[in-house]
């Protein structure tokens, strides 16, 4: 009898839970009504303007969910600032795990209960574009205010753009730099100078490597897919579809990096992951993208680091492009969300795209150079070590969202060269063949031709 009673109690609890938890969540936010359109606030923005002196949703309460996978405090700051102007709009920033965000988001966007606003990563373009509403902003104003809008235009509309641009640079350990007797004047401009500096930063105990001057282990695809641009070599032929991997420029990049290990400035067996080895204080210089600045600050706070622009082949000359870049994207709007939510989201979008203060904070937290032009000369942006290192951002090239076959095969190519003693020329040819096979039949179109200084290469 006691068992039956216990089971009955458990089942009753379950039924109550089902009932209690199955209710629809309210869309009415916190229920505040806004009655004042003329708030006396200034209109903000350079070309694209945002006028806060309006009523959103006729001043009636409305709730918007905003899904994001990171940088939550910076997203929340946008939401808080907007809600201060429009107290009837309740925006909840929901932190999602990066890995499965891309499984859940497309499923959720199929119905009408998906988030009205969500963060976008351009690598998932094909996965989500069919659920996105076009931006309700004048394209000419957006283009005037933001870098690199044009490659994102689809049939005269944009669904997201870049909020910032991320690329590679050289991170160096300031303590090791000083200990080697180097000063700011020794920051290398060319790869030949870099090679000599790497030698000076290398520390050995007899034949044993104690400190690598330069380490590029496990960073292979990051630099291999960008350094050939310095030599005038695009990743794709003029048709924008044919991959161009097996060429003298890529071979030269490989030889250049191998030379530094041949010098003894680093080793394939020392610090098997360059960025971790740098954080652990084993390595003096690494090539890394902008995200690494945040990693160093969070995970390796004791490392004093500086950042300088990736060296170029020839002193005093601007190469075809310094490197490849990729963008962190602005938010997306769910086209299946209810009409009132979409309208409120479009208003929030204009605020988001013109809010200099919070856009700057977001750029700094991502470690990306602002795509919002009014921020280009901002003192805080200029003071950021990683961002100031890029130099002329207009001389970086965006090849589009690169298919993963490049990363996979550049990594395999370097592993074959370093660990399996495969001849670099043969490894490069194999990578070309595999990438060509993988891209066959795919509807990929490079964005290289949107680069202002574009010149076709074979």
């Amino acid at each position, binding site marked *: 009898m006691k*068992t*039956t009673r216990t*089971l009955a109690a*458990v*089942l009753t*609890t*379950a039924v109550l*839970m*089902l009932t209690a*938890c*199955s*209710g629809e*969540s309210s869309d009415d936010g916190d229920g505040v009504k806004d009655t004042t359109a003329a708030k006396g606030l200034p209109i903000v923005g350079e070309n694209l303007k945002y006028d806060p002196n309006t009523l959103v949703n006729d001043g009636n309460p409305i709730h918007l*969910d905003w899904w994001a*996978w*990171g940088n939550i405090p910076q997203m929340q700051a946008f939401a808080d600032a907007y809600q201060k102007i429009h107290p009837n709009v309740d925006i*909840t920033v*929901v*932190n*999602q*795990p*990066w*890995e*499965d965000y891309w*499984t*859940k988001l497309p*499923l*959720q966007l199929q*119905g009408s*209960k998906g988030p009205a606003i969500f963060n976008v*990563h351009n690598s998932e373009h094909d996965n989500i574009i069919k659920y996105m509403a076009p931006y309700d902003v004048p394209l000419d104003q957006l283009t005037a205010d933001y870098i690199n809008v044009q490659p994102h235009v689809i049939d005269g509309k944009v669904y997201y753009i870049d909020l910032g641009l991320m690329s590679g640079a050289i991170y160096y350990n300031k303590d090791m730099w000083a200990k080697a007797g180097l000063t700011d004047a020794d920051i290398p401009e060319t790869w030949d100078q870099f090679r000599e500096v790497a030698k000076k930063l290398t520390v050995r105990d007899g034949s044993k490597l104690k400190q690598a001057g330069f380490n590029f282990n496990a960073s292979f695809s990051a630099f291999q897919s960008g350094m050939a641009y310095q030599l005038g070599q695009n990743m794709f032929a003029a048709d924008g579809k044919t991959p161009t991997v097996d060429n003298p420029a890529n071979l030269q990049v490989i030889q250049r990096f191998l030379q530094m290990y041949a010098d003894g400035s680093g080793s394939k067996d020392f610090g098997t992951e360059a960025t*971790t080895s740098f*954080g*652990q*204080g*084993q390595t003096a210089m690494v090539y890394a993208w902008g*995200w*690494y600045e*945040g*990693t160093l600050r*969070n*995970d*390796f*706070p*004791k490392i004093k680091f500086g950042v300088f622009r990736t060296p170029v082949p020839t002193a005093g000359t601007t190469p075809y492009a310094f490197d490849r870049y990729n963008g962190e994207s602005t938010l997306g709007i769910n086209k299946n969300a209810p009409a009132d939510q979409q309208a409120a989201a479009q208003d929030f979008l204009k605020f988001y795209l013109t809010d200099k203060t919070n856009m700057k904070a977001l750029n700094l937290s991502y470690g990306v150079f602002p795509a919002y032009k009014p921020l280009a000369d901002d003192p805080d942006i200029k003071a950021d070590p990683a961002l100031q290192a890029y130099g002329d951002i207009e001389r970086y090239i965006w090849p589009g969202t690169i298919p993963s076959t490049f990363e996979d095969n550049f990594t395999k190519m370097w592993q074959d060269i370093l660990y399996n003693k495969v001849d670099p020329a043969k490894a490069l040819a194999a990578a070309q063949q595999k990438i060509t096979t993988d891209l066959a039949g795919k509807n990929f179109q490079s964005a290289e031709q949107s680069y202002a200084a574009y010149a076709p290469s074979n």
Partner: protein
Amino acid sequence: MRLRITAICLNVGLLVIAAVTIFPFVWMLLSSFKHADEIAAVDQHLLPRVWTLANYRSIQEHFDVVRLFGNSLLLAVVITAIAVYTSLLGGYVFGKYRFRGRGLLFSVVLATTMIPWAVVLIPRYTMFTDAGLQDSYASIIIPAAISSFGIFMMRQSMDNVPDEILEAARIDGASELYIFHRIVAPLSVNAISALAIFQFLWVWEDYLWPYLMITTPSKQVLAVGLTTFSGQYSTDYGGLFAATTVSIIPVVIVYVIFQRRFVAGAASAAVKG
């Protein structure tokens, strides 16, 4: 003498295996008190050089740990109770009743364990969403309420329940429900304990389905909260270790409560008498 040496060797071997199994947990526990740079340092030490509670304090910055912990606990207890009950019921029917199609029906139940979970994920998602159950705990509880593995396990354990006792109870006028609750259930306590531990662990660890179904952050489960420590570019290992340490507390408690019966229960399900 020879037996004694064999026993010593066996025990030493088991101790080594136990140490290898336990070491990562001990390492995780102690690392949860280390700073990030010490966790990633080249020179690793088991004990933190500088002890810190910062990782535990930072959990709350990622998610409402108390709330999510409570959600997970509630779901795990309710689902375990329901699944164990339905499994025992199913196992009893398949093990002790004779009816036409019993073998076929049992084969169908077993066959459901062989369908890869990923295959049913999208159809199940559509089904529950269309039924308006998204963002409710019903969507988590209903699919887990019937466990084919549990039915199989209980069916195997029914061999430990003598038919003679059941017959005697029927002759004395006991109803079928009375027999089930007052005779079969108490005699199956080892198997129930083993299944309860398995079931509790599965629910406690379950991540993707709750993540897909629950959209309100305050209703989310702890396993989903833990994943927020892994970002696009890096992982906050200190915070992750601290949150994981907190999350395994109920699992340890459940195991401690049921451990005496766990081995016997698992063995009874594995061996057909």
